[in-house]
């Protein structure tokens, strides 16, 4: 069994209104050194290992988990015993 940890983030240059609001809140809490906040998504997918697991995860991300027009993704695969 594998645990796939997937991070999905908005592409650079794509405006992130939610991140902006969080950033402003951090500023109002007086974290003056915060320059930018980008809000993304984190997912954990448990799946059986296959020879082409990376290809499969790429496809999952392109087809559904991320929207390639506005989002980038990265992931790590961990072995679960």
């Amino acid at each position, binding site marked *: 069994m594998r645990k796939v940890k997937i991070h999905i983030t908005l592409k650079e240059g*794509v*405006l*992130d*209104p*939610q991140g902006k*609001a969080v950033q402003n809140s951090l500023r109002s809490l007086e974290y003056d050194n915060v320059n930018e906040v980008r809000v993304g998504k984190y997912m954990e997918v448990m799946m059986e290992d296959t020879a082409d697991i990376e290809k499969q995860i790429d496809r999952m991300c392109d*087809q*559904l*988990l991320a*929207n390639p*027009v*506005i989002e980038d993704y990265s992931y790590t695969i961990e072995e679960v015993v």
Partner: protein
Amino acid sequence: MKFAVVVFPGSNCDRDMYFAAKDALGEEADLVWYQEADLSDYDAILLPGGFSYGDYLRSGAIAATSQVTEQIRAAAEAGKPILGVCNGFQVLLETGLLPGAMLSNVNQKFMCHYETLIVENNETMFTSHYEKKEKISIPIAHGDGNYYCDEETYQTLLENDQIAFTYENNPNGSVGDIAGITNEAGNVLGMMPHPERAVEKLIGNEDGLRLFQSILTHWRNNHAINA
């Protein structure tokens, strides 16, 4: 003319859409549940607003993976009119039938009020009953209506006259003030404002009705040619 209104779990403007086609326009219409839908006998497909699958993951993303999507894709290739409003627009973006993607409104608020739209292209099968550059008043109701595409895509939209409607006062941050776009062939229209909520004077205005009348006119003209 026969309209199909595709109902997803979480659609909530399906009855408004049905009313617009059936009662306001006076044509045949059916509400079809997305899992049992057979769209082959319909002349036009309407994708209603709402929150399909609770907007999980991204607005419209889960609905775009359902089997009815393949039928919608086939209907689009066959040249049938397909109108996606609000969540319906988001579904069309997620299926890739229209270019671009939706981000949350720049002010992070759900907005529900009338907006003035400018008819940018009145030569589509959805807009022939409007004047070019005509200003119409149509309600919006969305939280994720901030249309995004890269500069190259935006230029393509401009070159191909794919921008059907823009906002006079951009409420949500959309690229190029875009309120509605068509595909390159011109038979798929996605728009965030709700024309189906503006089809009767009694409940506001009739500015949206002409969109449905345009679809009917196009169908009748085609039908007359084929008959």
